[in-house]
């Protein structure tokens, strides 16, 4: 029991903490220069010192990520609904979705920059990478309905829209939420990657630009500070979406089941 608790909480929290202490110790013992490897304490100090600039960039990155994720969620879900209604449309449009997914986003970004402003490019790239997992998962969920339940709805002469609303959408919920969790992480990655490719400066500069800029200036502690903010953002998105998923599924779905021992 106690051993289990230890494994469950202490290890995941303790191991990274130990790594940070080891890092700090190595930097101090060997007297490594901040230009090569800054100590964790220096990174935190930089984070506090440059908070204003970094916070502004964080806001930019976050707003792009959320706008892209929202658009990808709505778009992916609606297109999956359309796919579920019509085989013809699904067959016709799915190749486009696959092509957009398998083409690395960093190779599309320079092309998009020809047509769009750098801010728009970042938004579109972030949307493109988040869109596919939500679409594919939701489409899979909408078609993975118990055939007997479909028969049952047919037996009671339920119209298609009721079958969709009361059967297919609830049945696809776990799949959709799985896609959303993947899409949430990818939206952030897409926003960062596209910004590095776009190299947008000035007003609309996100965290990725801060990293590039700090690199040019050999301000390595600030690179790490920006990196830390990106990681924390990614973790926060994942935790928030996982909590959302748990909230919706814990009553009935096996993925949220706690086994009694």
């Amino acid at each position: 029991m106690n051993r289990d608790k230890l494994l469950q909480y202490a290890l995941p929290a303790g191991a990274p903490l130990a790594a940070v202490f080891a890092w700090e110790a190595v930097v101090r013992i060997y007297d490594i220069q901040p230009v090569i490897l800054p100590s964790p304490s220096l990174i935190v100090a930089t984070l506090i010192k440059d908070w204003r600039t970094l916070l502004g960039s964080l806001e930019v990155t976050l707003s792009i990520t959320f706008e892209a994720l929202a658009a990808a969620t709505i778009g992916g879900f609606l297109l999956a609904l359309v796919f579920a209604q019509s085989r013809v449309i699904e067959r016709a449009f799915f190749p486009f979705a696959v092509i957009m997914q398998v083409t690395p986003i960093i190779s599309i970004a320079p092309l998009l920059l020809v047509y769009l402003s750098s801010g728009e490019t970042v938004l579109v790239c972030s949307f493109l990478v988040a869109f596919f997992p939500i679409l594919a998962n939701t489409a899979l969920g909408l078609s993975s309905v118990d055939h007997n339940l479909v028969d049952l709805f047919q037996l009671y002469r339920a119209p298609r829209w009721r079958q969709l609303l009361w059967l297919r959408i609830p049945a696809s919920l776990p799949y959709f939420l799985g896609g959303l969790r993947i899409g949430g992480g990818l939206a952030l990655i897409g926003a960062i990657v596209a910004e590095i490719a776009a190299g947008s400066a000035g007003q609309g500069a996100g965290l990725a630009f801060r990293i590039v800029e700090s690199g040019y200036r050999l301000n390595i502690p600030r690179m790490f500070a920006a990196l830390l903010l990106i990681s924390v953002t990614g973790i926060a998105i994942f935790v928030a979406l996982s909590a959302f998923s748990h909230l919706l599924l814990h009553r009935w779905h096996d993925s949220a089941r706690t086994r009694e021992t």
Partner: protein
Amino acid sequence: MNSGAYSRKERVTPITLAVPAIPEASGFTSSPPPTDVLVRLESVGKCFANGVVALTGVNLDVRRGEFLSLLGPSGCGKSTILRLLSSLTSATNGGINWQQKNPELGFVFQEPTLMPWANVFDNVWLPLRLTGVSRNSARARVEEALANVGLTGFEKAYPRELSGGMKMRVSIARALVMRPAVLLMDEPFAALDEITRSKLNDDLVALKCALGATVVFVTHSVYESVYLSDRIVVMAPRPGRVVAEIVVPSPLPRGEDFRLCAEYADKCRATSLALHEAMALDGAGDTRLREGVR
């Protein structure tokens, strides 16, 4: 080894069984008893898109208030008959004639087939909800259906919190909530353990008698079919067809004692024999071979 057991049985049984079983099968259809027909299948055939003949030349009456079992090895079209009766699929040829218009049907699948995201109440409410009955108006009927299957008080439970037998009870309650003219059951207890199954068999018969319902019950258990049914229709596979009919006259409900009486043993043997004959026809494909076996 299997064929050895079969031929031994054949040697022992013909004198006592084959003789009464066959006249009964043919005699019953020619002189119908005073029960009225609810639905009549006339030379019904069903051919799937891939060319597989699921059913051929099926003549079958379902009589009001009877417990009818369809018995046969897998692939003999038992489930297809249920799907035809419930209009989930249509016959390739022949006619399915109901004596009443738009009869209410209840369907129970082999799996409980519950919506995992909905609690017991909402699952049972579903058929009513699909016909436009609000939650409040449905309450009394849902409670009644749940009481019928002994699940009062479980309204708020989710399917995953229930045992296999309880899930099946919910599934039966959902079929009953529409007060169906016929209850169609497709091997409903096949996945359950013997003890749960036996209990559900007794409860099902009690319920059928209390409600005066008609039941068409698909099974591949000889003992289950004899214990439960007024009439057993034995089917042969590839192509699916009706090959024998066995009547079990003892009135329902029968109780555990029935399993000890001579009638039960006789009917089980007659049914087993008919089933063995049906299985020997597997793959025969046409009727000439079937006659040859007879």
